[in-house]
């Protein structure tokens, strides 16, 4: 009494007679596990393929890698070529993936992270040095200063950023104004909100919001632009023509941003003050004139300057870090994405760190 086995999709039938297994139908990628199960459960010596109508390469691989004491019989002529093709291949498994225990991987990651961070700091310092040299040289020999790209980058990083920067500045001063009124009202001194908004916008908020926004907008754009140029060998093409990528690509971006960012910051300061006017008008009922009067009283000469003086330093670092990561791209598109991300993250980090240093400096100088 022959036993019948059927794969799930019924396209393969296996009939057993003593130690002979007759396969009927299709032996393919969907049915071969059913055949494998039958072979595991029974002691088979011969596989009869005379009624096998279709065989694909995984099926052929299965037949070619059976135990040595299982023999194929009645192979159809059209399957011979395929079986021979698979047999002649040097069948070997993929190399084992290297298994490292979790705790070692953890330590390796920490070590590698620290090494990378150190390497990164060195690279940033080196690149800042190189950019400084090339930029200074461009000013000494103004012939090397290319004006059309420079004005392009001022437009791109400055003028095009005006709407978003203005909006952010207004919203930040609204947030600060709301907090000020809420916290100062119990002491009956909610009019001091004007001091809070005006001074914090001019000294810190204006320039920080602008710098962070520009890191995200332009720092990333610089990294991606230079990165794609690097990946498509455009930078190599410049080098071969005897042109200096640093001078041609990096300098206009850096100078452009150093010019644009202070202007943007000034714009953000104005918009922030306007936002403050709006919020104090809504919450405290101050008219615009009263508000401006208070602002003139509380803002000391240095406050605007303290904010603006930081802008070119931030701009220099944002542009330099963006360009540096662009130049670090190696080959693939994936690398462009990775470098762009690190450009933004590092630029914002460096901006905040530098801002903290400036705070200490101005405190010590009593400005």
């Amino acid at each position, binding site marked *: 009494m022959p036993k019948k086995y059927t794969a799930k999709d019924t396209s393969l039938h296996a009939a057993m007679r003593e130690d002979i297994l007759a396969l009927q139908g299709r032996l*393919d*990628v*969907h049915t*071969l*596990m059913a055949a494998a199960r039958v072979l595991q459960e029974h002691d088979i010596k011969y596989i009869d393929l005379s009624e096998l109508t279709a065989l*694909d*390469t*995984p099926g052929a*691989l299965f037949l070619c*890698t059976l135990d040595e004491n299982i023999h194929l019989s009645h192979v159809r002529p059209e399957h011979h*070529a*395929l079986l021979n*093709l*698979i047999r002649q*291949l*040097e*069948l*070997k*498994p*993929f*190399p084992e*993936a290297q298994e490292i225990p979790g705790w070692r991987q953890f330590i390796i990651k920490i070590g590698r992270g620290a090494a990378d961070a150190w390497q990164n700091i060195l690279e940033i310092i080196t690149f800042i040095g190189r950019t400084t040299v090339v930029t200074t040289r461009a000013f000494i020999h103004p012939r090397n200063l290319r004006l059309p790209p420079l004005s392009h980058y001022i437009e791109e990083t400055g003028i095009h950023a005006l709407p978003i920067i203005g909006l952010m500045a207004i919203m930040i001063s609204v947030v600060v104004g709301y907090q000020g009124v809420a916290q100062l009202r119990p002491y009956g001194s909610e009019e001091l909100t004007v001091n809070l908004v005006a001074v914090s916008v001019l000294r810190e908020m204006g320039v920080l919001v602008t710098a962070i926004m520009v890191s995200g907008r332009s720092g990333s754009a610089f990294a991606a632009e230079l990165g794609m140029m690097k990946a498509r060998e455009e930078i190599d093409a410049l080098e071969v023509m005897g042109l200096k990528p640093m001078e041609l690509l990096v300098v206009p971006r850096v100078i452009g941003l150093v010019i644009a960012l202070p202007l943007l910051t000034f714009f953000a300061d104005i918009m922030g003050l306007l936002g403050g006017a709006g919020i104090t008008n809504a919450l405290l009922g101050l008219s615009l004139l009263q508000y401006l009067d208070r602002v003139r009283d509380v803002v000391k000469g240095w406050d605007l300057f303290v904010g603006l003086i930081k802008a070119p330093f931030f701009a220099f670092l944002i542009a330099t870090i963006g360009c540096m990561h662009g130049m670090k791209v190696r*080959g*693939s*598109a*994936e690398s462009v994405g990775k470098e762009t991300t690190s450009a933004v993250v590092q630029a914002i980090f460096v901006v905040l760190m530098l801002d903290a240093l400036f705070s200490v400096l101005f405190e010590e100088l009593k400005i």
Partner: protein
Amino acid sequence: MIAHQAPPILSARGIVNRFGAQEVHGHINLDVMPGEIFGIVGGSGAGKTVLLKTLLGLRRPNAGKVTFTGKKIETLRPAEKASLIGVLFQQGALFSSLTVAQNLMLPLREYTDLPLAVQERVAAMKLELAGIDADAGRKFPSELSGGMTRRVAFARALVLDPKILFLDEPTSDLDPLIADSIDHLILQLNQTLGMTIVIVTHDVNTLTAICRRVAVLVDKKVTIGTLDELMKSDQPWIHEFFHGARAAAAMRARHRSHHGNG
């Protein structure tokens, strides 16, 4: 031998493709028979890639329809499509975040219920079939050379044993030795698995070495014929293509090998 009575495995009827006012294809018809090796040629900008994308269903034509084994391409279920059609893209299109082995195993994981160990063995076998040592399995695509990328992409296109395999410029930018071995692989697949193969190519050598019928895209139209028929065409571009210096050398090689085979 092509059985001309059999229904075509791939059929395109009245394909029109336009970009704005510019017409790329004006009412193209073509049939690919099961088991044949079909070439598509045309000058740069003649719309070969657009035609290929239309055939694959990646681009909806402005008019006309594409059918595989009688079913419209839009109506094929994903699993059906995956086991019917394989594509070797020109740049390989290997997934850069996956290793070579994972690239090959992705379709197996999605469309079959093979256990992981068997998936690995099938993938390793396909890699060997495409002429790549299984040792490369744990590498990432960015670590491969151009020729290796092409072969791995070839192996991935073959993973589900497609009935019809599309090859977009399979031998471009490869050295002649690798190009020859890829031609050989194409012939081998066609002969042992009966795989239907559609090749889009510039390479006259590939064309004369392996294609039985060729569609030439010129002036928004296709001219389809065997190589010998096309050789006799008096359409200027086709004449130039098959009688230019490169073509002449390829044809000489073809005749030599035909005589050699007796």
